């Protein structure tokens, strides 16, 4: 049963056809990777899922409901979380406060005027936040300022902030971009753990083939705004079209 | 038709001042990315350059004139400006009379210097700080500058007349073939408009036709790339700050016959000039000029009795109203570039 259904979407920016007739179907509880050379339209595609961009034509539906025309926060409340290429966290807040924001959002919805409750007295929220931090082994950093964390820790924190909302779909935009090999391996391990322990679908955009092939169940290869192939990893590896797309890039 | 022409003319002098200040604000914002709340103070300092020159030229020594007596019958003391003694009464008198336009010569180096000192001494430390901090520190600087002027020149407005040849009014209507005295307009305001047009034209020509200007425009569009080309963009931007200060100063110098300079005139103009910049589009030079004249003329139309009786109070709020509508419907202003100060 597919949880994310993308049908015939196209997007133009001025003279540039960023996406044309993209069809993707992501099955529930799988990891679906979208790969492709630079400028293939991967990020544009992702932005269409989360409400940042609205495609010119076509439809995107999540769990049978259309996401088009909804704002990013509404789409998040439907159960889609997003991890950014450079971690987007609340740099001025402490780690535990960073965790509590999504906990409140998960419990109270997009807005609640809880001006007279007290954060320290919200035991359940604190426990939720701490348990999640523990899961990503960051509990001992709970009182540090998020802005002072290492890049790897920021990534972990962002991931934890997304997961604590118990999303049904997690979108990851190049989660290992700019990371050292060790950090990359840690992140792969983290994602594998998440996969093992949670009922969750992941859509991952990635450059690093090592990451893609160690995680993905299915792979869509995108080039110049159109999907070239969609298949299981084993069949993608030696696929002539894929090779052409990537080698083509290398020759330029 | 004549009423229409008169309102446009009425809008031009204020519009010219708005346009000149907004032009400088935009230059600073576009090149350095700094929101300068002290820009009104530069306008005010310019105006006080005119006051200073007037005072210097009228520095006098006293002589006793035995032929004239005061009302008590004592011989009268007569003050003679030194310039009249040095250059003879005719040339000296003319120098005093033309103090305001002559102050341009004084204002340009003074304002450039003020601009350089401001940029090197203060503003450059705020490039990387948030816009709110830039607003706050320049706001503080504006207070300091206007208080210094107040301490030196006092709190009262100081009348600085235009040269006698350019005082009085002119029958503009007759010039364009209307009946006599249908549109009578003060000469100096026309002079101000022509002056503003020349300065604006000069700045645009400078930016368009000199290599220096080209580099600056390229830097405004994409600072990093120009920096990568090995061009020292910072030094040029500092010069631009001096230029922007000079433009504001000149606007102030020539405005003195229209409004007697006082220490808070800068703040009064600043608020409106910011509105002008936002309406024109943050970072767009033509936008700033266009919006300046547009709002000046709109304001003058709104002050017509016919309009006021229709919508009471409209003359008081028209500029702000336009700004609010523009900001909400066209967030980038009339001619703003994409991505400038958008969150």
């Amino acid at each position, binding site marked *: 049963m597919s949880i994310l259904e993308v049908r015939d979407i196209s997007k133009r920016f001025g003279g540039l056809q960023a996406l044309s007739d993209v069809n993707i179907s992501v099955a529930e509880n799988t990891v679906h990777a979208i790969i492709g050379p630079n400028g293939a339209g991967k990020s544009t595609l992702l932005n269409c899922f989360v409400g940042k961009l609205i495609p010119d034509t076509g439809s995107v539906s999540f769990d049978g409901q259309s996401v088009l025309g909804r704002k990013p*926060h509404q789409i998040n409340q439907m159960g889609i979380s997003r991890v950014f290429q450079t971690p987007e966290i609340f740099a001025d807040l402490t780690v535990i406060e960073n965790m509590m924001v999504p906990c409140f959002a998960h419990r109270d919805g997009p807005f609640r005027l*809880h001006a007279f*409750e007290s954060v320290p007295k919200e035991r359940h929220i604190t*426990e939720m936040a701490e348990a999640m931090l523990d899961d990503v082994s960051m509990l001992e950093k709970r009182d540090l300022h998020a802005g002072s964390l290492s890049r790897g820790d920021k990534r972990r924190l962002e991931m934890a902030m997304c997961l604590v909302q118990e999303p049904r779909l997690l979108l990851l935009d190049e989660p290992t971009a700019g990371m050292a090999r060790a950090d990359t391996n840690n992140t792969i391990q983290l994602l594998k753990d998440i996969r093992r322990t949670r009922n969750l679908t992941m859509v991952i955009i990635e450059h690093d083939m090592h990451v893609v092939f160690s995680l993905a169940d299915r792979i869509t290869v995108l080039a110049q705004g159109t999907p070239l192939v969609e298949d299981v990893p084993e069949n993608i590896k030696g696929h002539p079209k894929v090779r052409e797309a990537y080698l083509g890039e290398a020759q330029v | 038709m004549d009423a229409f022409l008169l309102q446009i003319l009425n809008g031009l002098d204020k519009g010219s001042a708005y346009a000149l200040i907004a032009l400088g604000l935009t230059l600073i914002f576009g090149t350095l990315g700094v929101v300068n709340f002290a820009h009104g103070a530069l306008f005010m300092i310019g105006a006080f350059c005119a006051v200073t020159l007037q005072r210097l030229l009228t520095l006098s020594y006293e002589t006793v004139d035995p032929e004239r007596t005061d009302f008590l019958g004592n011989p009268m003391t007569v003050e003679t400006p030194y310039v009249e003694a040095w250059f003879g009464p005719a040339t000296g008198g003319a120098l005093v009379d033309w103090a305001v336009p002559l102050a341009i010569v004084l204002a340009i180096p003074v304002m450039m210097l003020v601009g350089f000192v401001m940029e090197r001494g203060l503003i450059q430390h705020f490039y990387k700080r948030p816009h709110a901090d830039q607003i706050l520190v320049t706001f503080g600087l504006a207070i300091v500058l206007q208080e210094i002027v107040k301490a030196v020149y006092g709190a009262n407005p100081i009348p600085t007349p235009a040269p006698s040849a350019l005082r009085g009014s002119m029958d503009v209507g007759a010039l364009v073939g209307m009946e006599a005295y249908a549109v009578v307009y003060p000469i100096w305001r026309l002079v101000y408009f022509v002056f503003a047009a020349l300065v604006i034209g000069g700045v645009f020509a400078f930016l368009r036709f000199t290599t220096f200007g080209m580099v600056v425009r390229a830097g405004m569009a994409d600072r990093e790339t120009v920096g990568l080309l090995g061009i020292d963009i910072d030094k040029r931007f500092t010069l631009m700050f001096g230029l922007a200060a000079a433009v504001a100063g000149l606007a102030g110098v020539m405005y003195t016959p229209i409004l007697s300079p006082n220490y808070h005139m800068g703040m009064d103009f600043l608020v409106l000039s910011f*509105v002008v910049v936002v309406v024109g589009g943050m970072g767009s030079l033509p936008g700033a000029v266009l919006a300046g004249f547009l709002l000046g003329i709109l304001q003058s139309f709104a002050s017509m009795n016919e309009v006021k009786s229709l919508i009471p109070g409209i003359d008081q709020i028209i500029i*702000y109203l336009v700004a609010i509508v523009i900001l909400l419907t066209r967030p980038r202003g009339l001619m703003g570039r994409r991505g400038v100060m958008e969150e």
Partner: protein
Amino acid sequence: MTDATQTAFPAQTPRAEAARDAQGRRDRMLLLIVALLALAAPILLNPFPTASALAQFNAGYPDLMQRFAIYGILAIGFNILFGLTGYLSFGHAAFLGVGSYSAVWMFKLLSMNVIPAILLATVIGGLFALVIGFVSLRRSGIYFSILTLAFAQMCYNLAYSVLTPISNGETGLQLSLSDPRVLDGPSSGSLPVTSLFGAEMREAATITLGGWSWTFSVGYYVCAALLLLAFWLSIRIFRSPFGLMLRAVKSNQNRMAYTGLSARPYTLAAFVISGMYAGLAGGLLASMDPLAGADRMQWTASGEVVLMTILGGAGTLLGPVLGAGVIKYFENIFSKINDAILHQWVAVLPDGLEDAVVAVIHPFVGKGWHLTLGLIFMAVVIFLPGGLVEGARRAGAVVRRRDRNAPSVESDAAARRAAAE
């Protein structure tokens, strides 16, 4: 919450538990200290005997103390918006102004009792903030500042011109004998005075002890009580989930949206709350002195609130009150120092030197106090972005390095700010 869910998660770490208690204790302590200071202000602010040369530095007279409290409320409200969300409003004077107008109208139409006046002022301030905020908060950054500025200037210009029937234009709105005052009945003889259930605002008891003289006025204690209420509310808001969300807005609106939160209602709520604070302050100003003029709404008045908050320390609890106090003290005390007084102080110096010293100090005091204020403000923005509170924290840290004491009350907020820079 059931036991099952409790056990499903690990218990809070003991350290977290301790930190939570410590913060609660510090907040209660801070409130207590502020309450004691406010209570004893008439004594504390008059440290110099009446006859001494330094008596002019005494600030313990009702009129000035009321200003401390009222502008403290205004700055606390401003800080809830600017300190937490980072939205810099240049239009808060509008809310102060409409608060004053509504209060005076209450005195004219209903009763000289300050309670209905203050309530109406707060509500009207909030309503204005709702309308202006609804429009202005569609944009952020400098555009938001300009929009609020434009709205405030519109209010100011209108109050001066076409709205004269409501605002009484340049003269300002005043009481008159012919006002209906439905609850009090018609007044005869002299103008009635504002009161709280019969206790007149200007009523005061003066105690003279030795060379000292202290004045305890009803008006001041009404203001002080409301200041404490305002301060307590701001502590609650700072520590609430709502306050956390406001800080999240300031920190990263993008992440906020992708966490399923809508930033606009949060900022609008903060804007309305801070507008209500400003309305309350305006109503109190009118309650102490029942007249309202349009100049209270001018943008320079908005600028003053900004100065107070930044000077004291934006985003800290105590900073705004401190900043308001410093600026009002300057305005009222520093501005009174003239050359004669300066000569008295430096009389010990030889004549020539004395004149020189006076000439150097002269531009900075008396009528030139704005210059000193501007310089101090610039220095704070340049060197001490956390304001006076941050300065106190740094000074405290230096002292503590010598005799390791407990952390200072405001250190957490200030440290957070410092880390953000």
